[in-house]
């Protein structure tokens, strides 16, 4: 029966070429727009560390003045002072913990007659690599002793190793950064979580690129006065260069908590710390927060507004396209009232008529989906040539490929419902009489 419906549908689609083209084109445009924007949206709201994100938490306390504070409503600032961060790190209450700030450094070339260049880097503590599961190609991270001693050691990214040493094992070699010598202790495999969750609100890029080029101990960076990218001070500053003591926030603190009990314990620990600081008069607010990685991404609204607006727009557009298809399908099926009348008179049931029209709608949907896929590829090609920082990431993956056809089929079947229902409601007698 299905084969017969297919045959009927194809005949009917071929008979009204213009109408069919309009339907397919309109559906395809709507689907193309939707798939393009959904791909970008999904990409930007994705999980940067799927294996580990549920165990990673971002700690926040609030050293700001009492002024403007509403208990329970004012969220703590996104970064921490050195004093608070060091306390949390040295308490070792989590399985792993690291403080993070962004930096950039001038790297001297290895060969003569090349120019020096700037690279993005991370100032952090020893646990960083284990905490975020950054994979090593050669060597390893530095030790807690390096953190304490401010050793001039460095971990470099795969692409920087490629650029400086042609990809060879460079552990033990020296690179010159900001006119200081650093000993390479580790080389990472290509590692670039998207979004760069640990850099949010520290003044770096959120998406795109190959990731940070170098990682060095926090204390070393401070000793060498490599300022962080972003500093926010909550009190008058006498010496902004003395970041260890200045009333300024510039560090993000991440902790690894393997289970619910550990999370609850850490929350209590953080709250106690804030209350204790209030009692000592250092804090005036006892607000704290401990968000998991995905919660932190949501809190930071990491997906740009423009992308969400575009997605909304695309869905509105798809709705218009589906309405359009409903109209055209309806027009087509009403024009065929006589044919339906004949089929009904010859014994076709209402269900058979309904099925026949749904098959026709489904074919329009599938062809629309196929063409829509083309439009989506075109749209993503356009997005890759946009100036946005996530541009290079916009690619169609397998799940979106499948999703395209699901959307196309669902949209076309919904569009086909009303016309098919009208078609099967056609009474055979008057149609036959008229001819």
């Amino acid at each position, binding site marked *: 029966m299905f084969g017969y419906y297919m045959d009927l549908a194809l005949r009917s689609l071929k008979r009204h070429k213009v109408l069919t083209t309009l339907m397919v*084109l309109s559906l395809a445009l709507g689907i193309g727009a939707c798939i393009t924007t959904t791909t970008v949206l999904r990409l930007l709201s994705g999980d940067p560390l799927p294996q580990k994100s549920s165990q990673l938490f971002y700690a926040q306390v609030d050293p700001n003045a009492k002024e403007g504070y509403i208990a329970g409503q004012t969220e703590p600032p996104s970064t921490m002072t050195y004093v608070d961060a060091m306390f949390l790190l040295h308490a070792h209450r989590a399985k792993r913990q690291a403080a993070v700030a962004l930096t950039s450094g001038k790297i001297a070339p290895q060969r003569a007659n090349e120019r020096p260049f*700037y690279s993005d880097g991370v100032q952090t503590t020893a646990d960083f690599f284990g905490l975020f599961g950054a994979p090593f190609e050669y060597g390893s991270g530095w030790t807690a002793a390096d953190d304490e001693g401010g050793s001039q050691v460095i971990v470099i990214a795969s692409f920087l190793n490629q650029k400086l040493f042609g990809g060879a094992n460079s552990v033990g070699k020296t690179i010159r950064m900001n006119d200081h010598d650093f000993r390479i202790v580790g080389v990472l495999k290509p590692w670039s979580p998207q979004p760069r969750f640990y850099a949010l609100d520290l003044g770096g890029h959120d998406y795109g690129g190959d990731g940070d080029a170098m990682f060095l101990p926090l204390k070393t960076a401070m000793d060498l006065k490599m300022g962080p990218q972003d500093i926010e001070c909550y009190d008058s500053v006498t*010496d902004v260069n003395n970041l260890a003591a200045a009333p300024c926030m510039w560090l993000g603190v991440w902790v690894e908590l393997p289970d619910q009990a550990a999370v609850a314990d850490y929350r209590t620990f953080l709250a106690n710390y804030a209350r204790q600081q209030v009692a000592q008069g250092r804090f005036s607010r006892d607000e704290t927060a401990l968000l998991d990685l995905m919660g932190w991404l949501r809190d930071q609204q990491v997906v740009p*507004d*423009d992308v969400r607006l575009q997605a909304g727009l695309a869905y509105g557009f798809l709705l*218009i396209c589906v309405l359009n298809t409903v109209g055209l399908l*309806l027009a087509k099926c009403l024009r065929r009232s006589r044919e339906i009348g004949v089929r009904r008179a010859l014994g076709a049931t209402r269900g058979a008529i309904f099925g026949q029209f749904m098959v026709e709608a489904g074919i329009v949907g599938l062809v629309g989906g196929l063409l829509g896929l083309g439009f989506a590829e075109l749209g993503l090609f356009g997005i890759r040539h946009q100036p946005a920082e996530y541009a290079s990431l916009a690619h169609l993956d397998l799940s979106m490929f499948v999703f395209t056809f699901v959307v196309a089929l669902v949209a076309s079947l919904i569009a086909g419902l009303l016309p098919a229902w*009208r078609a099967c409601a056609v009474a055979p007698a008057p149609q036959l009489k008229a*001819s």
Partner: protein
Amino acid sequence: MEIRPILASLRKHRIPAMLIVLEIALACAVLCNAVFMIGQRLDDIGWPNAIDEQGISVVSVNGADPKLAASDIPRDLAALRGIAGVTAAAAATSMPLDRNPALSSFTTTPDGKTTVNTSIYFLGSGGEQALGLRLLEGRFFNADEYADSGFKDFNSTGHVMLVTQRDAQRLWPGQDALGKTLYTNGNSWTVVGVIADVLAQDPNFSGPGGRYSSVFFPLHPDGVMGDYVLRSAPQDRARVLREARRALGRLEVGAVVDGATYAGMRGDYFADARSMVWMLLLVCVVMLAVTAFGIVGLTSFWVGQRRRQIGIRRAVGATRSHILQYFQTENFLLGTAGVVLGMVLAFGINLYLMQSYEIARMPWYYLPVSAVAMWVLGQLSVLAPALRASNVPPVVATRSV
């Protein structure tokens, strides 16, 4: 034109009529909001900036030895001024729209509680001319007013500053800003001049209040000054920039030298906004096309269905223009219903967007303008099928089908 028969016939085709109304309504709602967003982006892209945007090129030098800045910067500037076509050159800490916000908070009284966050710029000697700042009141810096390097951390007092007009109004509403004093950390500075509004380093970061909030301080050559501002005639820009990069590359061997025309920097800053405008425009055009084709399709179907009735009307005396008017009026009625629904919907979408995004209230006139656009679109798309209808010969009525 009698509309009762049209209404009667629409009642018989309720579902297709409703589809057209809905489609027009949705298109109208989306169009309103998209056009409003396009307008806002274009507003942003066109923010005025009272510096010589067309004549400036900026060469940045990063990673030079700060201890040598006092001698290196004058040497570099001498080389830059020697380039043919350069009319002024100066060192500066940052540039408007360079996306590196440097903000500091000031108060208008020594013990002031309410602070104002302002973009800060330090200029080397000749910086006013190199940027092309426009003086509105007071004067520029005197040669003896350039401060030593302690100043950049605001640890030195008694110096002078320029403020933008917008900042002057924000800090001292209704008063003359000249001679007034600003404070931070117990240090103070005197305003000697008010200049036309210059954009902040990152206006999107500074927010609407801080967009034109900028203050300028005079500073001796110092390691924090990473930008050389060059001014030339716009047609010399590209060559001047090329030669300046080459010259600085030779002089500053250990540093990273980069450069751009100011027009290019401005273009970069608004690149995202511009691409959003193109995307919105594209969606609007495609959406209107789809809507138009939908109307053409359904009306053509109606015309086909009513050939006999049209023939009868023609046979009993209706002229071609009567038939044409019939379909146009019918489309006008559907369009009106769609537009009314669409305006309500557009207003609702705008309210939702205001809550969820940083989007302003849509001015009311966007609604009637979009409404008229949808009407025109409807009339244009109905024209072809309506003309076809008006060409149906009366003889059709006499033929039995």
